[in-house]
């Protein structure tokens, strides 16, 4: 493991008008790590992801990724550097087929391949998530879990070094959750660093090597998952006094 972290968030702050969404967040993620990020609804998890990925601009602090300072870079430039994400609510390109959906990041953020190599790569990516036989279908023909899988396949098409899976499992059945978990762990084994944002604790505990807890825009815990979930502050945040 290299000494400098792959992703380094320091003193990051974000306000929406008078509302403080994130306050002085520090976070370091090392190459190859599987990090869980939890917190009650409205605690700022998605805002943090949006600030890291450039969907939102943050007023304070900085984000460094793989030796680059990301401040001021637009979202597509960050994707090209290897920082990919999936969206909490799937946002497929509705007028494009599944193959075309994963083709877009290959064309814009992937390595520059020949047309034939890109065709093959599209099918490989869909095959990885079990959607290869639906490559010519449109996203509207998909079920919820297939939509999540497409979301992950598209994020992976950008050949990321860091993948942020934003509630990729919300609303899925236990069997489907296991599917997605297995997929994420497999990607991690292939060398992709993964940040998992999730409410389903069983999945989070199974997946995470380290767990970070956000509450009301503050980071209140960061460490070994088994220790973090017994932390009195964390328990209070989730269950009340």
């Amino acid at each position, binding site marked *: 493991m290299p000494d400098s972290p792959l992703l380094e968030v320091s003193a990051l702050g974000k306000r929406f008008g008078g509302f403080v969404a994130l306050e002085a967040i520090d976070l370091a993620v090392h190459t190859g790590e599987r990090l869980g990020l939890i917190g009650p609804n409205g605690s700022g998890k998605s805002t943090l992801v949006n600030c890291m*990925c*450039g*969907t939102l601009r943050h007023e304070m602090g900085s984000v460094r990724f793989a030796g680059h300072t990301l401040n001021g870079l*637009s*979202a*597509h*430039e960050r*994707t*090209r550097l290897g920082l*990919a*994400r999936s*969206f909490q609510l799937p*946002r*497929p*390109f*509705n*007028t*494009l*087929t599944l193959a*075309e959906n994963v*083709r*877009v*990041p290959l*064309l*814009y*953020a*992937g390595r520059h391949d020949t047309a034939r190599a890109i065709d093959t790569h599209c099918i490989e990516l869909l095959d990885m998530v079990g959607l290869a036989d639906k490559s010519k279908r449109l996203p509207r023909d998909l079920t919820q879990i297939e939509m999540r899988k497409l979301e992950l396949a*598209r*994020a992976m*098409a*950008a050949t990321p070094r860091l993948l942020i899976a934003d509630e990729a499992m919300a609303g899925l059945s236990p069997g489907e959750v296991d599917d997605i978990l297995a997929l994420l762990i497999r990607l991690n084994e292939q060398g992709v660093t993964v940040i998992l944002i999730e409410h389903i604790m069983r999945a989070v505990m199974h997946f995470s090597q380290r767990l970070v807890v956000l509450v009301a825009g503050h980071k209140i815990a960061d460490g070994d998952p088994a220790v973090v979930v017994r932390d009195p502050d964390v328990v209070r945040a989730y269950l009340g006094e």
Partner: protein
Amino acid sequence: MNGTKFVLLLLIVAAATYGAAWAIGNAYVFFAGYIVLQYIALATAWNILGGYTGYVNFGTAAFFALGAYSTVVLHKLTNLPLPLMMPIGGIVSGLVGLGTGYLTLRLRGAFFSIATLALAVVVQTLITNWDFVGGSRGAYIVRPMKAPLLGIDYIQYLFLVMLGLVVIVLATARAIERSRLGYGFATIRDDEVAAEASGVPTLRLKLLATTLSGAFMGMAGAPLPYYVTYLDPASGFSLAYAVNGVAMPLVGGTSSWLGPVIGAILLGTLQQVATVTISSALNLLIVGLMLVAFVIVAPNGILGLFGAGAKRARA
């Protein structure tokens, strides 16, 4: 079919069209045909922004008229041949397209459309108050009887020039559809946030679309002064251009280059026939009724009625 073959096919169709018009041997065919061709170019140009990236432009007349007024200026100042004036008109309208894109980047949906409508009003006001190009009185252009070099009747020449532009515009539109750029445009139409997350530089692509679309509209408008011989702001900025520019792609179908062509031929011809047989005032009524009918019956246009076919044409 690859790009080269497609361009060859376009040239063959264009030659056949010219041959057929010539064989009919009636000057009016060229006169009416010019308008239909102009609308094919205009509708396809509109579709590059409106259909591919999903940004609905109501300011077609502004870009079109800027091309036409560029020609008025060039006619007064220079001796340039028309095929050289057209790219200049295209550059003028393209730059205005770039500016419009830059100023309206934060606007989406109806807000972008309203901004383009405002642009049309602003440009028309400026032209109306610019004395050099005739102001509100309008400008007279004396067109030669015969075309330079070719020696054919000037209306035939305009028809031929517009046919050439149609070939260029269609070849460009189809090439975009099948390229990396085409996928980028489609993702802007579908979901800009997801597009950015997929590495698509949405800002740059939007500017490219507004510029290209504006430039082709300007090129389509550039020969107009020679066609009408008298150009005033009311006719140059006619509502017909804005309405047809939107209606033709929507009626034909916006998903493929073929849609605007079908829409323009259908509506353009219908309007020309109605002008001669019934009355010229009926034009926009026909377009309006067709638009209402299509929005209800076939929201994806004529191509949408043959859904599978349209999808296959893309793939």
